[in-house]
């Protein structure tokens, strides 16, 4: 299922003195099965965009096409549940959305809202609790007795339990420790690979964008200012810097290396492994001659 944004504009509190233009002429596509990262400075409109992906917000101009359903300003859509079933959003600090007596019930809340039977929802909860890296025994506990990191995992399981076609993640690892970060991101990536789940990741971490994403969208002051693969975009560090964004450390290292050594690597490296490979190739050439 593709999601297309076409010339989307969004104004908060339209028609009052508090009116604020949050998105301006935003167009891009999230093709089925791709991993798309949206990056940008704080206040660049990233979070506003993702609320358009499952019709929580309706654009004040332009339209959003979600798997054939059109959401636009003038059309009052009915049955938005259908859309929301297909596009699951993990909001920032999703642990704030927990409310049930037990972890199991909380995970079951989403699927049951979408008409999944109780047994099926329970099965999903049992399957997912391990997937997010928690022991079975947690299911019977109150979510409010868990640690912050565990609550985060439960909330994520609650969204995954809806079995969406598109998974939208708004800084899912903010405030976690480095190990938890890696575990959670790896889990999302594995899901994306296994099930061909389209994934949208909103992040501040250039490393995550470089490492996981197929495509990148760079936002600045409510507009899309750059689009392309991470390799393309990270080879334009000056432009990124003008939007207040840096490049991953690996690339900074490569730049410094190229500047000091006067040599040029064959490609911008996105991971440490790639960089090591390129550097060793360079050494082989150097040693061979």
């Amino acid at each position, binding site marked *: 299922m593709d999601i297309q944004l076409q010339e989307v504009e969004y104004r908060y509190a339209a028609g009052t003195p508090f009116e604020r233009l949050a998105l301006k002429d935003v167009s891009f596509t999230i093709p089925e099965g791709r991993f798309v990262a949206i990056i940008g400075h704080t206040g660049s409109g990233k979070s506003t965009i993702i609320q358009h992906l499952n019709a929580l917000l309706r654009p004040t101009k332009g339209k959003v096409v979600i798997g054939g359903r059109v959401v636009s300003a003038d059309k009052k859509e009915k049955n938005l549940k259908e859309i*929301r079933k297909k596009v699951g959003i993990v909001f920032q600090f999703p642990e704030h959305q927990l409310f049930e007596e037990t972890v199991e019930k909380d995970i079951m*809340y*989403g699927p049951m809202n979408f008409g999944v039977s109780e047994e099926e929802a329970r099965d999903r909860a049992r399957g997912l609790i391990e997937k997010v890296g928690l022991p079975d025994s947690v299911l019977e506990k109150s979510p409010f007795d868990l640690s912050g990191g565990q609550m985060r995992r439960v909330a994520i399981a609650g*969204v995954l339990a809806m079995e969406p076609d598109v998974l939208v993640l708004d800084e899912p690892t903010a405030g976690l420790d480095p190990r938890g970060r890696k575990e959670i991101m790896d889990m999302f990536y594995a899901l994306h690979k296994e099930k061909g789940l389209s994934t949208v990741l909103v992040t501040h971490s250039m490393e995550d964008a470089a490492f996981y994403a197929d495509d990148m969208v760079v936002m600045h002051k409510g507009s899309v200012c750059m689009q392309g693969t991470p390799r393309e975009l990270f080879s334009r560090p000056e432009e990124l810097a003008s939007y207040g964004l840096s490049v991953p450390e690996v690339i900074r290292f490569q730049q410094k290396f190229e500047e000091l050594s006067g040599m040029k690597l064959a490609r911008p490296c996105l991971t440490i492994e790639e960089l090591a490979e390129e550097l060793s190739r360079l050494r082989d050439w150097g040693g061979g001659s």
Partner: protein
Amino acid sequence: MMEKMIFGRYLPLESPIHQLDPRAKLLFTFGFVVVVFLANNVVTYATLAAFTLMLVYLSKINLRFLLSGLRPVIWLIAFTFLLHIFLTREGDVLVKVGFLEIYEGGLRQGVFISLRFLLLILVTSLLTLTTSPISITDGLETLLQPFKKLKLPVHELALMMSISLRFIPTLMDETDKIIKAQAARGADFSSGPIKERVKAVVPLLIPLFVSAFKRAEELAIAMEARGYRGGEGRTKYRLLHWRWKDTVAVCLLLLLAVVLWRLRS
């Protein structure tokens, strides 16, 4: 949804009303609430309405914006109107449909009471729209100072008020976020039978309460960490200045009261 609420919001503009001392505005508003009840005929209500419109004009706040903010209370006003129109039996019968009779006195009462409501809400909204919450609390604290002798914890009350006012927007944002998070999980707050809708509120209220309590605790710790220990001996960063304009504002209200007293029947 929450964006439309104007009650309790502050709209920072440059206007003669914004510049008044909060104490003057508070006195004025309290006074106005009393003065409104002096009006009892067409002339007095017209005077009151004209006076209120003048205030709105002076405050530089868009009248249409102000009126759009009244939407939440419009039902209350409509209800009072209907109650009066059907239940007051004075004067001549104007219309008679079946068992329903509308009397002239009923119509008149209905219009007057609704208008009274409307003006009260307009003027009080004007107070909060033109005065920042901090100024309002500062003003209240100073105005209530005399009651300290009666062991009224004035400083604590003012602090409580400023904290609650401060957190209204935060709670609204939070509510909005949680509504969206649960809607994304398929919650439906706007359709279905009443029973279902009441149930749908639970996933909203619990997270809100949890975070409000957590926030209260964090705030208390942060205040203690910065050595807060009540109002004793505490000086003020913002000092209030009573200027001649403030005296004029209060006198204007007195003038209005005298005029209404003269014109009422």
